[in-house]
């Protein structure tokens, strides 16, 4: 009888063993971080994260609380400084060529709702929630999610996706290659710019604001809610426009307007409270909803 090893089963068992060993090693080497600072009601909070999962949440206490876990204490520095007006956290590699796991520092932070928050992250995920004065986030490949934020919101990434939901204020989001997604976002001034990521907006274009959505080569998808009221001016220089908005007159989506190269479309939804300008150089613009 020929002896034939069940290689897949063998690999599965080894993988399981590896996972268990990794878990044991992580538990053995990781370090818990915990620190808190009493602050004024509107302190500044600054975070520089090298790699890891970051969560910043607003709460109804005049206190900044930092909890976290450092996967490899010998590999990463975590510098925490604080006064009643400003708290800063910085994670930084102690040496070069760290693995992702070694470089990981996960942080869970609570700040007063009125805090002014600034986060700078290279890799990982950043989630910011429940703030009332605004937030600035910069990321390289980090995935950024902002929820329930009011005030000045500025987010920039190189390639990481940006998601903003249930927020309002003065909003600026830009990414070279990341997707931008906005759900239930209202702004007095709104700018979304990307070179090659997709822009998606789902909401009512509220607050009577000016909304500008710009892409170079990627698509822009707008789904207006039934309560939306706005004037729209969309143009794709070398791409196309697919319109399903109930504009009063047949939209000249495929017409070429004098003086403007490419496809363009204008129209009014409801009473036109807000102004929406959508431009793409070679991407497709898709408009729908508002029924």
């Amino acid at each position, binding site marked *: 009888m020929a002896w034939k090893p069940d290689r897949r089963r063998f690999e599965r068992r080894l993988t399981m063993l590896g996972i268990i060993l990794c878990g044991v090693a992580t538990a053995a080497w990781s370090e818990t971080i915990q620190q808190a600072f009493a602050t004024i009601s509107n302190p500044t909070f600054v975070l520089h994260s090298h790699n890891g999962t970051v969560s910043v949440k607003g709460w109804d206490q005049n206190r900044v609380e930092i909890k976290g876990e450092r996967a490899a204490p010998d590999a990463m520095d975590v510098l925490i400084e604080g006064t009643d007006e400003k708290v800063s956290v910085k994670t930084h590699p102690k040496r070069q060529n760290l693995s992702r796991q070694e470089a990981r520092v996960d942080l869970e932070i609570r700040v007063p709702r009125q805090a002014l928050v600034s986060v700078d992250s290279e890799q990982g995920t950043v989630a910011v929630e429940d703030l009332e004065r605004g937030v600035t986030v910069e990321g390289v490949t980090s995935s950024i999610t902002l929820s329930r934020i009011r005030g000045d919101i500025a987010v920039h990434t*190189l390639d990481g996706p940006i998601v903003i939901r*249930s927020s309002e204020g003065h909003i600026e989001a830009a990414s070279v290659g990341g997707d931008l997604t906005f759900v239930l976002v209202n702004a007095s001034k709104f700018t979304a710019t990307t070179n*090659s990521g997709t822009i998606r907006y789902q909401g009512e274009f509220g607050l009577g604001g000016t909304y500008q959505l710009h892409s170079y080569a990627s698509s822009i998808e707008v789904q207006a809610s039934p309560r939306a009221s706005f004037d729209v001016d969309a143009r794709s220089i070398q791409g196309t426009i697919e319109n399903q908005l109930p504009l009063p007159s047949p939209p000249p989506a495929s017409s070429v307007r004098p003086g403007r190269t490419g496809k363009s479309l204008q129209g009014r939804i409801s009473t036109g409270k807000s102004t929406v300008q959508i431009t793409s150089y070679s991407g497709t613009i898709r408009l729908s909803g508002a029924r």
Partner: protein
Amino acid sequence: MMNCEDFEREWQELDDPSLFSPAMEEHQTTCAPCAARIRDVNRIRWEARQLIATEEPPSRLWLNLRRELDKEGLIREPGAQSWLTGVLTFGWVPRLPMGLAYASVFLLALVGMEYVRDRVTPAPSQASLPSTTMVQTEEQPAAPAAEVAKAEAPRRDAAVAEARVQAAGNVPPAIRRGIEKAPPEQRAILVRNWQQINSSVGELQRFVAEHPDDLQVLWQLDEAQEQEKLLREWVMRWELEGF
């Protein structure tokens, strides 16, 4: 007439990268940089295939191993003795070190093979990624599957990215130095974005030169140049301070 950017995009979307459309065929015959890039990537794919073809150990290895394990008495035909009897009589204790040694060799070989496969296997094309829908309710998770796949793809495409860094003739030396200092998993992303934004700026500049009164496109050019500057600043961080 297809431009380099359209070519690059269509190429990335192909299930089979060798199945060019007529427009792509035409472009590659007239565009030397794109033709060179195709040659480079094809060479890398060919080399990757060679490595993958040798990752399965030859059958004689299993036979030799079987013979050795038999000799050491570490394996028996099923039914010869119950496992419980074997355990209870502790007959396995003297052979444990040898068994562990074999297991270590297996483990190392497996990890090595997985490492090689990760390094050389090209990423799946964008066309094969799951699509996302535009409608999203408030309670849905933030990162759709496509985004996760998008984040994973550059890691698997590291070999191609390295070649791109080397082959990217239009990357200025200072930017290239910064990219080379970036973490390996970030290099492909930086090169891809640098090439895309560079191509966008070039295309917009050409358009503005032909349509100097088109303020919307002029504004887009400003935005693209701003993003190029931002990308340059990020790369400089690695160059100067390792982020």
